[in-house]
């Protein structure tokens, strides 16, 4: 509870544009923001840009944060929305880079549960941008297909197709990654 109180105190000072509190908040949530951004972006540079853009929005809108709600969730929503903006900008180049279907040996089909959480990220990053974004928004953020369609400027049926393709591709890709990572 004491740390929660310390967080609210930092947020309160951030509202008053206190530079040291901003720095404290930045360093406290930088890792969390970067891990979210890395899931949506192909490379670290793009992820850093998303993190910077996201923190600008956090600091300029921190007065709107409702202290009765979780700061972590509010913060996460901002980073995800910033990442979506980034995806939209990059989507024109990425939407057509769809890798060929992968052929997976049957004896490698049950290795998914053995992969670590960090390995999961690497596999997700290898999905085409549109499929990756739809997968993350639908399965981890809880958006509906209509909402995703609205955010990504695609139709809801396309969103469903992208999700189905993403899941299929992930099922195919995990055993290959397991081979690479675990010999």
């Amino acid at each position: 509870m004491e740390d929660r109180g310390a967080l609210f105190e930092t947020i309160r000072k951030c509202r008053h544009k206190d530079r040291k509190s901003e720095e404290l908040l930045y360093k406290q949530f930088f890792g969390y923001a970067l891990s979210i951004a890395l899931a949506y972006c192909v490379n670290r540079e793009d992820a850093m840009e998303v993190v910077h853009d996201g923190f600008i929005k956090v600091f300029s809108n921190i007065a709107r944060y409702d202290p009765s709600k979780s700061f972590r969730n509010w913060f996460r929503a901002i980073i995800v929305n910033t990442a979506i903006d980034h995806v939209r900008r990059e989507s024109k180049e990425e939407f057509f880079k769809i890798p060929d279907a992968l052929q997976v040996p049957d004896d490698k089909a049950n290795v998914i549960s053995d992969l670590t959480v960090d390995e999961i990220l690497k596999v997700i990053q290898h999905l085409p941008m549109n499929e990756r974004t739809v997968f993350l928004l639908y399965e981890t953020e809880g958006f509906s297909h209509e909402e995703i369609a609205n955010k990504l400027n695609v139709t809801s049926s396309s969103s469903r197709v992208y999700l189905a393709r993403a899941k299929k591709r992930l099922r195919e890709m995990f055993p290959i990654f397991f081979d690479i990572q675990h010999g």
Partner: protein
Amino acid sequence: MDNVEKDNVIIQKARDYLDNRSQPYIEGAWEDFVEFRRKRKRRRICLKYGIGAAACLSALFITFRAFQPEGESFQPDGETTIPPVITESHISPGTARPDIPLAELYAPEKHAATQRYLNKGRDFVPTTRGAKIVDVADPLAKKDNPQLTKPIDPGSEEELDRNGKEEMRTEKTERKDVLKERDKLKEQERENWKDPSGRMLATSDDKVRIGLNISPTVHSATSNAAFAFSGGITADIKLTRSLFVTTGLLAEHQQFSSSRPNREFMGIDKSFSGDMVSIDIPLNIGWKFTHHPNRNYYIVGGVSSLAYVSENYQSTERWQEVVEHVRESGGEEFVEYEVVTREATSTESAAPFQNFHPFGRLNLMVGVEQKINSGVSFHVEPYLKIPLSGVGDEAIRITTGGVNFKVSF
């Protein structure tokens, strides 16, 4: 393990990653962020100042023109020079043309007669109050704190939360509640934004958007067309999801020229040209017929009111005259008849804001809006402005066409 089970494992691991994983802090990230923020801020400030400077310059220009003393733009009345241009000569020795009285050809009131002749032959409304006839061809921009700069390792999240897993569970529950509440609100909002066919429409934009316009235009008074530019500031005010009203202030440079045969006796041709600057105050209503987040299409229609800041007209008329010369050679008198081409040019100007034409033009426009980023859009709008009445001091009906390029924010 079947496909559904595999999917569930993957999804669970992805959720675990996003919920719990935290990357280590990168040294210098805060300093990079400060620099990044500073650059963004500077860019925003430059944009704001640029817009403000442009608006101030426009306002200054209008004010200057409005309060310019009348005497500076006016010159003494009614001088028309007629430089004779000889293009053809015909000599008929010993022949007199009985249909042209000699007295009229050499009469001292010849220039006065020519003036009457010119005024009679004009195809535009004569100059009224305040307008004067003037002379020809007048060119007119780390504090070191050990506590703060110390890297925060991935475990610091747990350190911050003394209640450990309990706190995380609380957060997850809160998050689920927030998501549920947000879903409810969004569902309600979605219902409001369904079109009659039940199709979802995109989320709303700003209530008022300011636009900076520049447009190459083509003006046409009769058969001839002239190229010019217009530009200014507009405001798009959203009425409903699809309807919006556009108004603003646009400075427009108008040029036109027309020429036609001179049908008077011995006339050649008449040409009339104008160079004007007007303030266009449009009042348009637009209908956006697509609602995509990035690109939208719309049509706009309405009327414009015009106030003229400067008006300069030039009229040129050419005709021929027969001039008689009498000479003596060898004691015999010869009468020579010479056809002389004459040209008269007159220039007129009107006082600033002397002419205001409410709803003087009909505006028709189609447009495409391309979002550049979350706050800025670029518009391309081909348009046609049709005159509803004669405008300017000479009541000219000018049709204007062009493509308007607009940045709105």
